[in-house]
């Protein structure tokens, strides 16, 4: 009986306050979309880092017979290679290194052929390509240690941190995350204030009913729950719209477009969105509940 009564009160309240309810839905929709976008951008960052950091990150390219570099005097000798291999496998450097693979000129040539077309590979011979040590690191951030140890060593032409190629991407994604979180924050403040105002208006619109309810001894649950649930319902609708927007954006913007344009990375997928969705709902509902309780305690005392 009481449950049914509260439900009918909620329906009346939502209908009477329709324009305010719609605005709460829209504002939470936009703000939660930004929150979700921020979360997905961070997941994208860690997905990219994951792919990259899992694989070999540093290449120590050795001198070839044509090298012009100051540390090179002709091709790297066997002694040079042994020195490097030994240094990588003994402390202190071995503490930083997780794996070492030597890539010969023939292997380099094979790999070259996989991404160069036949016309170009016709002009390249294996002995023009550098031999290299491919080094994986325990902590990918400690690239400097390896670089300082081998730059300028005899037989080493260049030490390349392939992770560095990605740093600009990470910077852009982190900036986008920051922007969406700031926008989300602004919109969330607007949402909280709007929920507060909506409840104040709703309480004012229904002051006859609530006045009588207080007088006849309605408990605060019966008195306040309809208002609280109205806010929660509106915010849930906003969260549903935000989730739908994120799903569509990831499906059609990332999976079916960006991933086909630039194939070298892993991308966030709708699976990641589905993981994010419950948090959007939870966060939105908590927000609505807190905003509602604060304004109810001010405008709808028992």
């Amino acid at each position: 009986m009481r449950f049914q009564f509260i439900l009918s009160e909620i329906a009346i309240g939502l209908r009477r306050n329709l324009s305010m309810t719609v605005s709460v839905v829209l504002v939470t929709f936009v703000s939660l979309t930004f929150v979700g976008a921020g979360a997905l951008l961070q997941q994208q960052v860690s997905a990219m880092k994951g792919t990259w950091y899992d694989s070999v990150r540093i290449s120590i390219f050795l001198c070839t017979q044509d090298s012009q570099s100051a540390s090179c005097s002709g091709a790297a000798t066997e002694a040079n290679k042994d020195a490097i291999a030994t240094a990588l496998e003994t402390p202190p450097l071995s503490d930083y290194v997780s794996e070492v693979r030597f890539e010969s000129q023939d292997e380099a040539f094979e790999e070259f052929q996989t991404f160069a077309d036949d016309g170009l590979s016709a002009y390249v011979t294996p002995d023009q390509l550098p031999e290299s040590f491919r080094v994986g690191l325990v902590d990918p951030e400690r690239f400097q240690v390896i670089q300082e140890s081998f730059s300028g060593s005899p037989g080493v032409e260049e030490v390349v941190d392939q992770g560095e190629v990605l740093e600009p991407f990470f910077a852009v994604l982190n900036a986008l995350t920051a922007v969406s979180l700031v926008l989300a924050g602004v919109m969330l403040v607007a949402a909280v204030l709007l929920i507060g105002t909506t409840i104040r208006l709703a309480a004012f619109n229904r002051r006859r009913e609530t006045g009588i309810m207080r007088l006849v001894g309605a408990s605060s649950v019966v008195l306040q729950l309809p208002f609280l649930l109205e806010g929660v319902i509106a915010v849930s609708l906003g969260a549903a719209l935000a989730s739908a927007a994120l799903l569509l954006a990831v499906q059609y913007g990332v999976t079916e477009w960006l991933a086909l344009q630039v194939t070298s990375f892993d991308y966030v997928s709708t699976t990641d969105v589905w993981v994010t969705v419950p948090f959007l709902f939870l966060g939105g509902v908590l927000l609505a509940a807190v905003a509602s309780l604060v304004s109810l305690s001010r405008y709808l005392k028992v």
Partner: protein
Amino acid sequence: MIRFDDVTKTYDRTARPALDGIDLEVSRGEFVFLVGASGSGKSTFLRLVLKEDVPTSGAVHVAGKDVRRLSSWKVPHLRRQIGVVFQDFRLLPGKTVFQNVAFALQVIGRSRSSISTAVPEVLELVGLQGKGERLPHELSGGEQQRVAIARAIVNSPAILLADEPTGNLDPTTSLGITRLLERINGRGTTVVMATHDDDIVDSLRKRVVELVDGKVVRDEHQGGYLTGTIPVVPAPGTSVDHVGAGSLDVPAEAAPGGGTTS
């Protein structure tokens, strides 16, 4: 049933208190008129009983409970033992008579079946049988006040507070409403009625508590409205006679007549 111990209520520190050191006790089953000019503290008295406000100092006991010590989540339970009626009826315009009365039971979680028996009973008690499907604007003022009374007593409260319930009604209708309150009082409900209506007070010969500037200046057990504190004007004799005849059939309380306390 209601006890005020040295109760003072100040709304604004600089102004004089709305109630100033009130000591008053209303026993179970009593009918009390609360009289006094506007601003004398009648409404404040009723608000304190309902815990709409708390006293600045002193203690208010209602139905055996110290109202000031009552935690806010227990206040609804206090209010379920008190029915309230106002001058402006306060009915919900979109609901029928039946729905207006049922509303009071719905919001405290009564079952549908107990509502469907309690509401027709109380409508019959207040003389509105057969009018359950009317909307408030289809009723006269007196009938609207009867609906409000029905809503106030449908949960069988121990106390009925009436804040100038006849203020918007003509004398004949007012008398009918007061009679109804008297009948409700006869069923054991303690009734406190704040009023300006001298005819009614004079005719019922019930206990009269008079407030002036927040102080009790008179507490008579079979009082009339007119006293030394209000300029004596010739009473409209016809109406006093007319009213008096019917209401004296209620046995007068054995109390020492008159006697001003304060």
